[in-house]
């Protein structure tokens, strides 16, 4: 799984002109997809600082780093831009990442993809990542939370050996790099995450506000990608994670010199590769025979 690349969407790939279809340059798959170019944050993205307003997430687009402008998708799927100062002041310096996945050296065979007949798009599960929290209002999930909490307090949970890297801001301090271990319980993978100084006002999928110092358990779930046939690209259904900045961390003034580039290439690319566990229980995984729309609606309905 090391022959893929990750990048941001470009301004052109999300541009929709409601009044003139001919001017619309958005990727075909995003035009067909039920939420259009809008995406929503995963809970992991919110807990790492992602903003959510209305039903869709802010997320970064490819930027022109030489002129210091940062482009991003705003709420209500509006294209926006700002400078470094505004980025820090208005958006706490870090917006979510909605990655685009592509394979530079090979063409993906559609035989391996799932087709949604209603939306007429291909989609794919590739890799996995911590996404949504266990919901304490759901009796079944609450029972799992209790066991996980108890085992964590005893330090007796089984590790998969994998850690996830993320940037999280703490009260009155800049974002700092953090690592969290992945654990396995009854064949499913989880990570513990303690909210720490997240002041974005974002709501979690459970409808709750983020509470400082509350311990959340995030389920590690397959990443769903929407396939654009024309460009041979996969666009993550959700904005997956927030936190890294565009600060320059090495010589140069291009994207390659930024913290974001380093994070995507040195961490995110590795972090989406699943850890190996024995007797993996696949029952929690999206059934590949189920249409994507149904899955998305189910998720949206469940997540509010």
């Amino acid at each position, binding site marked *: 799984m090391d022959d893929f690349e990750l990048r941001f969407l470009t301004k052109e790939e999300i541009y929709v002109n409601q009044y003139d279809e001919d001017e619309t340059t958005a990727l075909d798959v995003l035009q067909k997809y039920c939420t259009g170019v809008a995406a929503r944050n995963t809970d992991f993205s919110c807990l790492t600082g992602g903003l959510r307003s209305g039903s869709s997430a802010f997320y970064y687009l490819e930027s022109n780093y030489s002129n210091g402008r940062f482009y991003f998708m705003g709420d209500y799927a509006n294209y926006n831009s700002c400078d470094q100062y505004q980025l820090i002041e208005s958006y706490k310096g870090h917006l979510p990442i909605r990655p685009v996945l592509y394979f530079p050296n090979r063409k993906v065979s559609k035989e391996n993809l799932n087709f949604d007949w209603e939306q007429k798009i291909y989609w794919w599960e590739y890799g996995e990542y911590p996404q949504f929290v266990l919901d304490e209002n759901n009796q079944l999930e609450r029972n799992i939370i209790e066991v996980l*909490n*108890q085992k964590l*307090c*005893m330090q007796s949970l089984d590790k998969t050996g994998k850690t996830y890297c993320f940037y999280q801001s703490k009260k009155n301090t800049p974002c700092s790099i953090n690592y969290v271990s992945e654990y396995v319980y009854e064949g499913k993978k989880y990570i513990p995450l303690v909210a*720490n100084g997240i002041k974005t006002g974002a709501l979690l999928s459970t409808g709750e506000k983020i509470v400082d110092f*509350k*311990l959340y358990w995030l389920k590690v779930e397959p990443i769903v990608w929407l396939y654009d046939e024309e460009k041979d690209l996969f666009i993550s259904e959700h904005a997956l994670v927030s936190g890294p900045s565009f600060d320059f961390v090495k010589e140069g003034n291009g994207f390659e010199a930024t913290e974001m580039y380093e994070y995507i290439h040195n961490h995110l690319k590795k972090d989406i590769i699943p850890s190996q566990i024995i007797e993996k229980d696949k029952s929690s995984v999206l059934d590949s025979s189920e249409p994507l729309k149904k899955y998305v609606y189910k998720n949206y309905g469940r997540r509010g």
Partner: protein
Amino acid sequence: MDDFELRLLTKEEVYIDDRDESKTTALKVLQKYRLDTVKTDLVSLTGYLCENGTFYSIQPDFENKIYYYINHYGTLNSESYNVHFPLRLVLKFSNSIVDKGKLEYDSTLGIYKFLFGEYPQYVLNEDNVKEKNIMDALTQKLCAQDLKKTGKTYCFYPSKKDTSSSLKYEVEEYTYGEEKYVPFILRGQMPFTSIATDENIVASYLYWLKVEPITWLYDEDTDLFVAEKAFIPGVGFDFVKEGVGFEATKTYEYINSHLKQDIIPSRIMNSDKSSVLDSSESLKKYVYKQYRKKR
């Protein structure tokens, strides 16, 4: 460490007659200190509801099915049904090893205080920068399962709002920076009652309780030590084995199977050895050492 016993106060040891002093049988130290006391954060976190002060159980009269307790005004009360109030323990050494020289005299109250054993008591406060930094470090290490265990575990019986029963809760003690801590996460939805940091208790919040020395009030007449605070969550007086007396109850079993061991300090390797009770050393020596350290 079988050279001490733990028990509850008896009705006679707390009885105060406001109108006729000659009928008062309460321990002298309690007459001076007052009968009401406070609970620790651990007691709040394990489900005890009282907002101000605390109620605490004393020895019931099983023959007449009377469950006595002291309320937050320091008044003796009773119920005819089993109560789960916190416990305020009494400590008695089998040999009188303590002389007044080792006790700390509280000149305001005119009583002697004594430090013996330790137990998780108060939560770290996130509004205090130093404590917040410790919380962050502890939390990060716990999430990576990378905290150093002392090898000791504590056993509590937190109440659960959605069930009438109490479930056993075992938690590891960890050491960090030469201090000892235990993590506590509330199970499910819990009552909202204040803790020392003036915050409401939040479900799933990761609390860190500091393990601290237990303060005992010394009663000179009887050579008894009464815990200054109600620091043990109540477990009720259900009968768990044959018999009809206190010895057959869950509280008795909890005190003797768990608390007697749980209050003995764990050994911290390569760090602060002075606070550690070496099993080879005598209790008397330990008592001296504890007292000197805290002075």
